[in-house]
């Protein structure tokens, strides 16, 4: 479904992606892991067309995405930091995104799920970080798209919202969708991910199931297995 071929990206002198190759099949949950600054967000942003790679090819459903925008109708993205125009109310923002994207949406179910009914007419500038993240999640999940990309989705969520989010992710997976998730919280990965993609030095260092990772690192605990991978960078 998604193919990255020989992807290069550097910001000034800093090389973030260095000839990365990756292909992701349709369906399932893929956790993109790696130490801070390993290029997880850059990789995702390249796919979204927000960061323009120096070299390389990105295909989505067998079509190149570079310099295009129509393909984005078929993916949903949850950005890392949710910051919205402070003068709009929650419901206005939701309607605005709906308006920008003329596609079936089912926001009312999600608003109820995350208990946002009382906030609908509040201005976004007055919301707490966690509530903003909930709005962010509603905006991401309300459209029906083949691909869902979540960049640190758990930031600022309370335990109940976190449980709802995990259920939501499982539901989408059951519908046969592809989900890309970056996170630093290993319990989330352990619980959800079908496959792990581990980035290091701008390349794919490991790709495979959690079991395979545990086997390769001789570690039964995922957190330690990942730490084992990261420690090689520090060594």
């Amino acid at each position, binding site marked *: 479904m998604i193919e990255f071929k020989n992807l290069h990206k550097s910001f000034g002198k800093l090389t973030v992606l260095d000839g990365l190759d990756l292909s992701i099949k349709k369906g399932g949950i893929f956790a993109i892991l790696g130490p801070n600054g390993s290029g997880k967000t850059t990789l995702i942003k390249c796919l979204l067309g*927000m960061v*323009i790679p120096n070299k390389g090819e990105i295909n989505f459903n067998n079509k190149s995405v570079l310099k295009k*925008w129509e393909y984005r109708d078929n993916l949903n993205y949850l950005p890392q*930091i*949710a*910051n*919205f*125009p402070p003068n709009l109310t929650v419901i206005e923002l939701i309607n605005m*995104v709906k308006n920008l994207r003329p596609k079936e949406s089912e926001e009312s179910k999600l608003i109820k799920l995350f208990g946002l009914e009382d906030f609908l007419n509040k201005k976004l500038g007055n919301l707490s970080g966690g509530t903003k993240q909930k709005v962010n999640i509603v*905006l991401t999940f309300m459209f029906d798209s083949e691909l869902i990309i979540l960049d640190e989705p758990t930031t600022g969520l309370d335990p109940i919202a976190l449980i709802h989010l995990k259920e939501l992710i499982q539901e989408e997976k059951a519908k046969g969708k592809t989900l890309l998730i970056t996170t630093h919280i290993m319990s989330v990965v352990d619980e959800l991910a079908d496959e792990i993609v581990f980035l290091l030095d701008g390349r794919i260092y490991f790709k495979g199931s959690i079991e395979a990772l545990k086997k390769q690192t001789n570690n039964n605990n995922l957190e330690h297995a990942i730490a084992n991978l990261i420690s090689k960078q520090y060594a």
Partner: protein
Amino acid sequence: MLKILKYSFYDLMRSRWSYVYFIFYLLLGFVLLFLNNDVSKAVITLMNIIIVLTPLIGTIFGVMYYYNSREFTELLLAQPINRSKIFMGQYIGISLSLTLSLLLGLGIPFVAYGLFKSAAIFDFSLLLVVGSFLNFIFVALSYNIALSTENKIKGFGYAILMWLFLAVIYDGLFLISLMIFNDYPLDKFSLIATMFNPIDLSRILILLKLDISALLGYTGAVFRKFFGTNVGMLISMFILILWVVFPVFRINRKLRKKDF
């Protein structure tokens, strides 16, 4: 693009600063009219204020809006919308809301005072047209600076410097060069130098429409010959349009390679 424009416009129209700006012009208009008791005199005073203030406000609003809405822009960038449409929508949204504050803020007091019966109606409309141009020009220039500068504080600094240069320093350099090259014919030089600064161009355009241009002396006569005619007027308007088109063009070029 129209949808983005609409939302940027609404967002700004609801922000406190748009009202502060609007009320400022409203008060300014009334105060000037009561002090001067004469529409044409008020227009002259107003010109001096508009020519310096609209560029400043346009610059600050442009930079502020860009940096404050950066995360939201990222959200938009992930939607199936063309990049340049997002930014053009925002740009036109800001410029329009500023222009609306200007037009309404000054229009209401002048109309209430009896502008339509006054002979100064043409001068006043020219003033508003030039003010609107300055809004569009300086928002575009500041967007250019903001797009090229990642750091918010630096971007703000450069934008203010740009305004300071065009509003004050440029004139200083201009005057110094006139003094130094006093022995040479300078009319062509000064005409061209004026074209390279939208603030100067606007100022002279209005001054020459008013009756005080006699104060400008010999150069004034040269300017009058140029700007006073319809051709000169058209050329200056055309150059003001170029001052909008080039920065907008550069915004779009910059966007093609920009990472967010």
